[in-house]
């Protein structure tokens, strides 16, 4: 700052860079929390859709799938097989909400306002990511609670539970950063729908509902190699107390890779000139 000019707001100027960034991120996080409380519909959708799918697959199709797949192969009841996939879908729906929220910020022009203020630039995105992750984790806990009421019986091993929470958090961060990038990229709310479709469709083409072995040709190849499958398999192993393939390296690797891509992409989009 030039010495000739009196500082505008003493407290603000005196604050250190890191302190200011923290304070701005906290302000953005408060704003995000308010949005969630003000707009409960989004949260209800995030929980409601996975619960409906859970009821559909366990209540309606569960009997037939149980008979067809053979319960012995998947640690007993079909509900135990399907819940990890449902949890991942919850995370996916949560990310969709985030993409829409970021896109609303862009189209409303409030992000343009933030950009012209002397605030920590990353705080806008950090607020979204931290807020969304917290909201999505809360949704995942609620969906898991419903699953337990419906007969889901996970392992009691606390170490595996910790690993489960860590993995869900990691995949949430990955999908949320991707969602932020998509929200920044899309010109309108409709532009986000491609992401929504992918996130909602990929679980069906994975090991979420039936093992890829039971699928045919190309679909099986896709289902085996897409990122959701190793993540769901790892979650399933952790939750049911069964062995996790490759020690979960593939699952964690995919999460880290997706998170990194999402983060770098979002950062680049946020920095570029908003050309209208």
């Amino acid at each position, binding site marked *: 700052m030039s010495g000739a000019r009196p500082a505008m707001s003493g407290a603000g100027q005196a604050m250190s860079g890191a302190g200011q960034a923290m304070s*701005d991120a906290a302000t953005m996080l408060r704003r995000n929390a308010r949005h969630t409380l003000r707009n409960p519909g989004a949260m209800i959708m995030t929980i409601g859709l996975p619960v409906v799918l859970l009821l559909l697959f366990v209540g309606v199709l569960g009997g037939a799938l149980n008979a067809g797949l053979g319960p012995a192969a998947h640690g007993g009841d079909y509900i135990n097989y399907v819940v990890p996939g449902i949890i991942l879908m919850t995370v996916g729906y949560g990310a969709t909400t985030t993409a829409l929220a970021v896109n609303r910020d862009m189209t409303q022009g409030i992000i343009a306002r933030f950009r*012209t*203020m002397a*605030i920590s630039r990353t705080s806008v995105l950090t607020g979204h990511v931290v807020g969304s992750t917290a909201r999505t984790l809360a949704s995942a806990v609620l969906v898991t609670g419903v699953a337990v009421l419906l007969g889901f019986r996970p392992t009691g091993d606390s170490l595996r539970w910790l690993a489960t929470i860590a993995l869900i958090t990691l995949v949430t961060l990955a999908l949320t950063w991707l969602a932020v990038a998509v929200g920044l990229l899309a010109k309108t709310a409709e532009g986000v729908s491609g992401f929504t479709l992918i996130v909602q469709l990929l679980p069906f083409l994975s090991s979420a509902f039936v093992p890829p072995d039971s699928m045919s040709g190309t679909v099986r190849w896709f289902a085996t190699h897409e990122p959701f499958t190793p993540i769901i398999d790892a979650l399933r192993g952790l939750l049911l107390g069964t062995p996790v393939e490759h020690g979960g390296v593939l699952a964690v690797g995919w999460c880290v890779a997706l998170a990194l891509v999402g983060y770098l992409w979002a950062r680049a989009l946020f920095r570029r000139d908003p050309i209208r």
Partner: protein
Amino acid sequence: MASTAARSAIAVTGLRRSFGGTVVLDGVDFDVPEGSTFSLLGPNGAGKTTAVQILSTLIGFDGGQARIAGHDLASEPDAVRAAIGVTGQFSAVDGLLTGEENLILMADLHHLGRAGARRRSAELLDKFDLVDAARKPASTYSGGMRRRLDLAMTLVGRPRVIFLDEPTAGLDPRSRRMMWQTVRELVSGGVTIFLTTQYLEEADELADRIGVLDHGKLVAVGTAEELKRNVPGGHVRLQFGAAADLDAAARELSDAARDDEALSLQVPSDGGLPALRALLDRLDRAEIEVDGLSVHTPDLDDVFFALTGHPTTAKEPTP
């Protein structure tokens, strides 16, 4: 007065910017002294919004230099941001938050502290007549209320330089007057205002100096008086009921432009009462019957036509 006049709040030299292959700003120079109002006047597509976006650090520029509140735009963007406030064409308010929460959000980002934030927010709600709506979500506000909230949010941090991009576009006359009043108050408090507008009247009302922007170039800079003096667009339009009257009038008023289809005549005039009286007397003496009369003062179109040789609307020839 002498000491402040010397300091410039916005100093721009040779500012250039193109998008893809299109040149949007083509070497623009101007200087805005502290505590004054500068208006960038021009039609849609002239580059006004781009100028505001560049000067408010929102987008970069390809060439030239700009200093705002004493800080270099390119090398000290954060110092510039700390000194400015921006209200764009489209209200940048958070629709899910209430008016009060929007203001407190701004106050928190300016680190005013809890009590300070509440005090500043209450002050601005009162000033902008938003007290009754303070606890309602901004998404329920009318267009005028949103614009007032938008400006109030801009003022939270007491910026020294304020950019207003078409601040009254789409506003009703009452809200427009209110906006003008606010701008005048800010200027009298020493704030520098940079505003863009499509309305000559608005620039005339508010600006100390006006820059006319056309296709990315400043074609004229001066006071409203200086600009209008060079604009011959003022005229009186006479409407006739019969072709014979039109012929007679055209003979009488040789400097007028006639329109045979509309049976009308455009007589150059400053539109003042003495000129009108003289004109009517002349027509009376020649016993010419006039159906109707209207007075046209120079508007943006006239300013444009005079300065650029083409009207504001005809950016490309229609096929």
